């Protein structure tokens, strides 16, 4: 009994104290008692994005995180995400109306029936439009040349390794699979305007596949590079407007090729010699500057300047991240600038703007946007993704 009475008394005291506190708070200056409460949000329609802009960069988020995030290098803001499965490849419709994703699914997660397709997403809403089924594709990460689109946007070429080597031709206008072309010993596709596509081959040649007729016609150039001793990196750059490709080898040789029915490959030059440094060699214990990492090369079309990720090391360190960017005047065959980076990076791309920006990203997913002229850091994004980078234009 005594205990209960005590409890009641305590409760009365507590209530009085709380009432007094409430009065103090309500009478305090600045209390917004008269203002109406906030209105609940009205559900807004999903945002849309405009057609691709030269300032945008598309980030393949890497091995473990699917999808392609879109960033504006002018603001450092993310604009959206193009969906994609594990190890998917993305291409941009040249008309800017769609994004194409070559990808693979299984009916039960990673088990069950395999389904390979080119998935079409609307360029503005990023919503799924359709799926174009096709027979297989290679499963590999960090590559830009396993899915390429023709210059007019009508045709997609998807590399397949089963492990036999072939290419799927996809009609993107009619949105249907056309045919599979066997291409033994060749990979790393090059969209070849007016012809079809080309590819690099294990004998050091370039194969060119004319797709105009009822049957594909395959021709090969003379061997021009050492495919096993000094390979050309898969992530080379193709300028469909100029009909030109720029290749880079492990030792640092730069080749340019004029595309067409019979591509013409110019004599290479050494990036090291172009910088006044000893030419890259394949011998062990020869410490020198070498190109490296995942995506080593970017080209700014208007100036004809290449930007190459370089690192110091021995030969066969071609995957090492790089801490310098060498700017190369391709016509003059001269390294015109060496940019020392704060840290090492794995991927490089450049916007095709008049005042371009360099984008670099690391294996840890960090992405940095630099002013290409001054080297000034404009934005740093902690975890954008560690996969390959795409900008609008040559890549």
């Amino acid at each position, binding site marked *: 009994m005594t205990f209960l009475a005590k409890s009641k008394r305590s409760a009365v005291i507590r209530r009085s104290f709380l009432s007094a506190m409430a009065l103090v708070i309500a009478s305090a200056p600045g209390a917004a008692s008269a203002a109406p409460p906030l209105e609940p949000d009205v559900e807004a329609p999903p945002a849309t994005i405009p057609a691709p802009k030269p300032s945008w960069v598309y980030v393949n988020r890497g091995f473990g995180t699917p999808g392609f995030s879109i960033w504006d290098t002018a603001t450092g803001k993310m604009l959206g995400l193009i969906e994609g499965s594990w190890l998917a490849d993305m291409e941009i419709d040249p008309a800017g109306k769609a994004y194409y994703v070559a990808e693979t699914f299984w009916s039960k997660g990673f*088990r069950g029936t*395999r389904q390979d397709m080119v998935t079409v997403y609307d360029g503005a809403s990023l919503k799924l439009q359709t799926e174009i089924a096709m027979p297989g594709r290679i499963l*590999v990460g960090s590559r830009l040349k396993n899915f390429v689109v023709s210059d007019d946007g009508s045709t997609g070429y998807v590399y397949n390794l089963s492990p036999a080597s072939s290419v799927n031709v996809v009609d993107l206008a009619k949105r249907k699979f056309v045919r599979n072309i066997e291409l033994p*010993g060749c990979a790393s596709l090059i969209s070849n305007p007016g012809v079809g596509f080309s590819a*690099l081959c294990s004998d050091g040649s370039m194969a060119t596949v004319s797709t105009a007729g009822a049957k594909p016609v395959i021709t090969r150039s003379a061997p021009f590079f050492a495919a096993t001793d000094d390979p050309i990196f898969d992530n080379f750059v193709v300028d469909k407007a100029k009909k030109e490709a720029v290749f880079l080898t492990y030792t640092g040789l730069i080749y340019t090729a004029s595309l067409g029915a019979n591509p013409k490959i110019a004599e290479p030059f050494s990036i090291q010699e172009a910088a006044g440094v000893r030419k890259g060699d394949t011998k062990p214990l020869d410490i020198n500057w070498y190109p490296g990492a995942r995506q080593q090369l970017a080209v700014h079309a208007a100036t004809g300047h290449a930007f190459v990720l370089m690192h110091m090391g021995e*030969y066969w360190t*071609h995957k090492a991240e790089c801490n310098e960017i060498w700017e190369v005047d391709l016509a003059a065959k001269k390294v015109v600038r060496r940019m020392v980076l704060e840290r090492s990076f794995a991927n490089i791309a450049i916007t095709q703007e008049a005042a371009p920006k360099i984008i670099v990203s690391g294996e840890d997913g960090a992405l940095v946007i630099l002013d290409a002229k001054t080297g000034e850091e404009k934005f740093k994004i902690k975890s954008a993704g560690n996969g390959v980078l795409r900008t609008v234009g040559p890549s």
Partner: protein
Amino acid sequence: MKMFDPDAMGEKFLRRFAGGTSRRGILARLGVALVAAPVFPLLPVSRAEAAKPDRSPEAKTAFARNAQTTDDTKCTYWRYCAIDGSLCSCCGGGLHSCPPGAEHSPVSWVGTCINPEDGRAYLIAYRDCCGKSMCGQCGCDGTDRETQLYVPQLNNDIIWCFGTTSMEYHCSTAVLIGSA
């Protein structure tokens, strides 16, 4: 009508051969061959085959110079000169065996690695273990003589889970095939 007679043709050929040769002639030719035999190894092809590969530190890659033979859970283990991915030795499997429930791919990419103990080069088949999500342990990326996709058998980025019930990548093994 004349019929085809192989016996007669054979007899004719042997009689002509016997008539045009002599035992002395054959012995003389054999003698020339015996005298000339020591000269054959001087020919370029023989010299190339006889040349011993240079296994000096100066001829080895950075990986080969630092390779070891005792711990197959480390990236420096000699067979891992061109591996890429999680080591199955760290995932419940071994150098040439898959962890429980994972399936060995019947095909692979290859590398040529030098065993520091005997100085010989060996062909190593990097066979992926498939059908489980990525192990994530002991990630290694050996790049000795590793090439690009147009030489797929020497490329270590490709998911090599061909011919398995699932193409999901789990880890990689390093199976010794033999002397390179």
